[in-house]
């Protein structure tokens, strides 16, 4: 699956941009990288899209192919 590589500070920036009822939280990989689902990019380009306010930073994140074996756990943002 394709994921977006992100760091915890970027997660907080994204959440600060989004409406209070919309949040992202990162999944940590076995190599301690943090990732978000690439499907966020399918819902951020037009003003009515769920993640529109964070579109610029979402599009700037590098993409990475990962396997399910690489997934360590899910990290909840401090913004929750």
């Amino acid at each position, binding site marked *: 699956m394709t994921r977006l590589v992100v760091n915890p500070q970027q997660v907080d920036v994204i959440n600060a941009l989004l409406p209070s009822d919309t949040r992202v939280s990162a*999944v940590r990989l076995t190599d301690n990288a943090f990732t978000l689902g690439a499907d966020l990019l*399918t819902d951020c380009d037009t003003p009515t899209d769920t993640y529109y306010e964070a579109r610029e930073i979402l599009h700037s994140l590098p993409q990475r192919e990962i396997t399910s074996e690489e997934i360590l756990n*899910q990290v909840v943002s401090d913004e929750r």
Partner: protein
Amino acid sequence: MIIGRFSLSRRKPLIEFPGIDPTARDWQQRVIANGGTVTLPTLKAVSDYIRAQKSSGLWSKKLYVHLPCGDQLAAAKVPQLVGAGSSVVTTFNIVEGDFVNTGATGGVKGNGLDKYWNFGWNPVTVGASLSNFTLSSYVRGTELVGTSRTILAVNGPSINLTQLAWAMVGTAEIGSVGAATTSEYAPTVNSAREGYLSVSTNGSRSQQYYVAGVATGTPVSATGAFFNGDFFVLAGNNNGTAGSFSTRYIRAIVISTGLSAAEQLTDYTIMQAFQTALGRQITP
């Protein structure tokens, strides 16, 4: 400005339909305020559900009702009965494509990895009764897998578990209301369970599991408490951290006070009619 049955605002047209229950109309207006829309057939299905609940005397037992439906995710995030919960649920990593209003893929689908929501309902701050409590969810999909998958839950570290889930304890579909330990789960048999699933206490700490309104499995008594936290959906709130993510489709989340066996069957019948109206019913 109001013209006949149509009231126009600057942002979106507000279309009021005659013959719709006032509680359903209130929900429709909250959907519009959240940037969503709802078609007449869906609004009528919600109205029929609420009216049937009211006429059967069950609406007054409802503490929270969320039937995710409408034309887009913004509509689906608005509960029909907010109670002590959030007026709009807080979604995590859920995108528009995760929600479908009608048909076989109707509901909000999890991915078993990072998608879930919090509806701001904490049984401790609400003051819910451990011996008079019902947790229900309408789901599509089974998870006969080698790991726990949660429909909705709040719990401490392996204690005070209130939930509906596929659990690895006995590898069973389970429910619990303040279970002190995993041995206090009310399980069903180890087979696929989908549709309207519910666990209820009704006048005692005895927990009864229900599938499609019918008591299933042996009642189990619980001795724990509610954990002080919000329920998560498509995942469990495990001491403040989301985990045990589900891949199922969530079509309803309902919290009620205690329901008798007869009330469970009535509640199911009304719920099944609603899901059928949207073409997303599960045949028991």
